[in-house]
């Protein structure tokens, strides 16, 4: 456990925060929940959880003046952990919410799983990181999603899973880790990832 465990959790409105907060506390962090744009920009570590629709979350982010500080933070590669819908928010949009723009941090559009698989995907799927991943390891993670992106951002390290075809399970870019799965619900696998993410910001080592 490192001394500095300052971490902020963004209250996007529709997200259930209890599991994220419980996981962070288990790792020795003392998470604060915020909707303050200045905190979103400055916090040494920010978690962007999310369930629900892209439209609902974007409406909260825009109304509260959070969208631009969050987009700037991600563009600068500052330590950020985006979870599930949090990953999809960083893209340009989603089939689930036609006509609603995401934050546009990368050009991906979230699309629905094909009709050949039971949707939503609920359960533990195997995650295979490419060679460039520093924080994401091989293992099983828990997913609860109907939409996903199939191409990671250019230049990002990525990990993949398969459900009716390959999709992006997670990616790393600078200090940003975005997971389609829920690390806070992924047992020891998820806790290890969160632990490494918390630790990465300590060393300022987020520079890839």
């Amino acid at each position, binding site marked *: 456990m490192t001394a500095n465990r300052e971490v902020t959790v963004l209250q996007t409105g529709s997200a259930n925060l*209890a599991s994220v907060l419980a*996981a962070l506390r288990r790792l020795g962090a003392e998470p604060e929940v915020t909707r303050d744009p200045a905190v979103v920009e400055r916090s040494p570590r920010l978690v962007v959880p999310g369930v629900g629709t892209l439209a609902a979350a974007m409406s909260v982010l825009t109304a509260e003046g959070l969208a631009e500080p969050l987009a700037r933070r991600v563009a600068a590669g500052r330590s950020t952990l985006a979870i599930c819908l949090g990953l999809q928010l960083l893209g340009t949009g989603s089939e689930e919410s036609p006509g609603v723009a995401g934050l546009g941090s990368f050009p991906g559009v979230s699309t629905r799983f094909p009709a050949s698989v039971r949707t939503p995907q609920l359960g*533990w799927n195997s995650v295979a990181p490419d060679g460039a991943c520093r924080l994401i390891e091989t293992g*099983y993670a828990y997913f*609860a999603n*109907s939409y996903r992106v199939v191409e990671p951002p250019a230049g990002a390290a990525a990990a993949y899973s*398969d459900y009716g075809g390959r999709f992006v399970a997670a990616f790393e870019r600078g200090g940003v880790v975005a997971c389609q799965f829920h690390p806070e*619900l992924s047992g020891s696998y998820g806790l290890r990832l969160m632990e490494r993410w918390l630790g990465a910001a300590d060393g300022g080592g987020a520079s890839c």
Partner: protein
Amino acid sequence: MLTVRIIPCLDVRAGRVVKGVRFQDLADAGDPAALAAAYEADGADEIMVLDVTATEERRATAADTVRRVRERISIPLTVGGGVTSVGDAAALLEAGADKVGVNTAAVSRPGLVDELAARFGAQCTVIAIDAARRSPGGFEVVVRSGTARTGIDAVGWAAEASARGAGEVLLMSFDRDGTMAGYDLELIEAVVAAVGVPIVASGGAATASHMVEAVRAGASAVLAASIFHFGELTVRALKSQLAMLGLEVRR
């Protein structure tokens, strides 16, 4: 590849487990939080808490139970029992549930499923269906722990509830529950064919082979209580057997 989920179910009354499992080194088998943590350590993929407290006391105790379990586990938590409104579900989700199951209240008022899905999303909304065989054939929905037959076609209700936004069907066979005779495979097959969402099989499991049958019938997950409560089979041992029988499980 998506693995088959093994889901131990804890029946909880007034904050205490009704049928406690005897784990080694677990001092209090009646504490739902300690038991859930032991199941996670043993390899459970998800925990189901079914609150069987009488309705009038439930509001006070259910959220507290969920809060205590959530503090101890890092895997998904599904909670069911007596949810009648969006407010009930919100209290459980806020306390740390990841999915909420509705049963009797949704049969009385199907619009509740739409409301939950619109507010919390399909991935949070589980339709729990207790189904019994009926004499000319087919299955009907039973409610209030099997004390009331509704005449409603269980397969048609599963299809309607998923169309209304439920993201998962928790399918309990009333005839097989507690028999240890295996899941009702015809029931599973009928519901699997009628909906596009995942199905959790429940009721009747005694062996790893029963679970393999349910998965072959199309279930995405298997829920069990008695098989673990009697302490004869650990989750870890069960998963070894399932793997040997050809299923992909998380280990």
